[in-house]
């Protein structure tokens, strides 16, 4: 059954996934394009290092962005057929719900390995084609691993959101927006009236810190994405 689900997911997402695979392959190559080694003098190596680090800084935001968009696309596409048929077919299958969800989630995660592999190969090619200046090191595998974890995290989050109805998703999003708005106003009101300890506390700051710092789910997005670094 897992093979069938994998095939169905692949069939549904393949045309959407191919651009991501190509981008994942090409992005590391683009990030180092044009940074050629000089005539071999020490200053040429330093100048190349400066250009390489400067260029990496410019391309850097696109790596986590690509991982996010890839994960989200796969997650949204994984429930597309179920939504279209109102989940009737899935409910007629002789499997437990958790088993069905597990298989569906695993199928999407397996498909996610395609862009990740493309990113890894692109990174390896990009860094092997470079003459790495002294003092710098290439991290194609580490960055590809970060890409995998980031894409999988976003995939899992959107997978759980997409499993519900549109109304549920709207409730969750609306609830979050309400919390964000109230979180900005309520602590201030409470600090002035009942709980002085809340002075200066912001829900949004707390929330962002909680999700971006370990053990938050998106901590992996905030690490170093430098393909070449000191």
């Amino acid at each position, binding site marked *: 059954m897992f093979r069938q689900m994998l095939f169905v997911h692949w069939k549904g997402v393949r045309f959407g996934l191919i651009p991501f695979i190509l981008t994942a392959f090409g992005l590391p190559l683009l990030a180092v394009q044009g940074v050629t080694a000089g005539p071999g*003098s*020490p*200053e*040429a190596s*330093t*100048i190349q*290092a*400066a250009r*390489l*680090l400067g260029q990496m800084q410019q391309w850097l935001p696109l790596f986590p962005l690509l991982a996010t968009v890839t994960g989200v696309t796969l997650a949204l596409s994984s429930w597309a057929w179920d939504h279209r048929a109102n*989940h009737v077919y899935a*409910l007629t299958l002789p499997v437990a*719900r*958790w088993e069905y*969800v*597990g298989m569906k*989630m695993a199928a999407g995660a397996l498909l996610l390995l395609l862009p990740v592999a493309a990113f890894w190969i692109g990174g390896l090619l990009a860094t092997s084609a470079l003459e790495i*200046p*002294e*003092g*710098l090191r290439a*991290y194609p595998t*580490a*960055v590809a*691993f*970060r890409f995998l*974890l980031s894409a*999988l*995290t976003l995939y*899992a*989050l959107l*997978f*759980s959101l997409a*499993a*519900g*109805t549109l*109304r*549920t998703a709207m409730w969750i999003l609306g609830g979050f927006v309400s919390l964000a708005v109230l979180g900005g106003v309520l602590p*201030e009101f409470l*600090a*002035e009236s009942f709980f*002085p*300890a809340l*002075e*200066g*506390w*912001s829900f949004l*700051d707390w929330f962002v810190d909680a999700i971006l710092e*370990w*053990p*938050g*789910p998106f*901590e*992996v997005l905030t*690490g*170093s*994405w*430098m393909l070449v*670094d*000191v």
Partner: protein
Amino acid sequence: MSSLIGCAGPAVPLLLLSFGLLVPFRGIPAQEEPDSTLTTIRVELDSLIPLMRAGKKEADRAEWLMRKRAMDETQLPVDTFFAGPFRVISLPEQRILAEEVFTATWEELRPLVDGSEELLEAWTFLFHHYWSRDGMVLEGDTLLRRVSLPKRYPRSSLERSATQVVGNVLMRGMPQDLLDWSGGQPRVESRRLAWVARELVSTPSQAVRGCFHGDLDWCVEAVGLGPEGANWERWYTPAELRLYVRSMGSPLLDQLEVIWEQCVLAEADEACFEYLRDRDPVIPLSVEARASLLGHALWTGGPGALGRLRGAAREPLLDQLTAASGMPPDSLLASWRTSVLEARTSAWAGLVRSPLSFLLWIVFFGALAVRSTRWRLG
């Protein structure tokens, strides 16, 4: 008689007119004795001065009382307390936040300040996290520094602001050349050291390259403290100078443009030197890197380092740093270079611990998907 009177008729007004015209000239005798009149007037005026001063004093006092009464009516009560070595004033409801912010600042700056807390004794820090600035006016206290930000700024901004303000206080009174050289603030954060490591690898300067390779003489040059002083030709090779001139962009003046083109396009080294001759040489490592060296000197110097730095204010910059650190220059630069290279970030950092939390989050999200409304309704 009547005739006389008749003749006198028109004469009386004429006499009166003449008298009236002559009245202004009654000063003629005074002009003959000007000193005495002026002296009289001056004495009379001088006698009024104490009266005028007394009146002005009364008016000032009345105005001051009015202002004070107005301030007392709008003034908010404040708390004064200590957080670490800092004397802090804040609104009572902001005291906990202020304590936390200044405690965090103390933890960050402690390696630099330890043993020199007396430098902070005279200072008071006014903490204000506000929607509106009204009500936090403290007058007459000249040793007051403000950590004051609108409430839209998060707590991290308050901590940065407090660190900046306290850093400024600590560096107050330091020689101007040290402030100019270090940007006015010592740095110790490892996050900044990671950037210095990138500079050490990628700054196009033979001095920096030599420092990266471990030559401490070059390290002294790279931070601009070499014995020969500022020197374009010593710090940069001709190729690096050319790169520097290129980065400055083509000038607008015709004569300079020709020299610029000879330097950049025709690669004539002499033209590059000529182009830069009238410009102050740029120290190869940035002010951030230099501030990290100052921070490192204070940090390694331990208790009293800041006091020793102040004590050596008349010495050359390198001697000031060695006095603060208590180390010879070579040892100071070697340990700074090592700490910079150790601060290099690895792309694997955080990835080793991430998988565990990552797996938990995946399972959590998967469990949420199983609990979807669709299924429960179905």
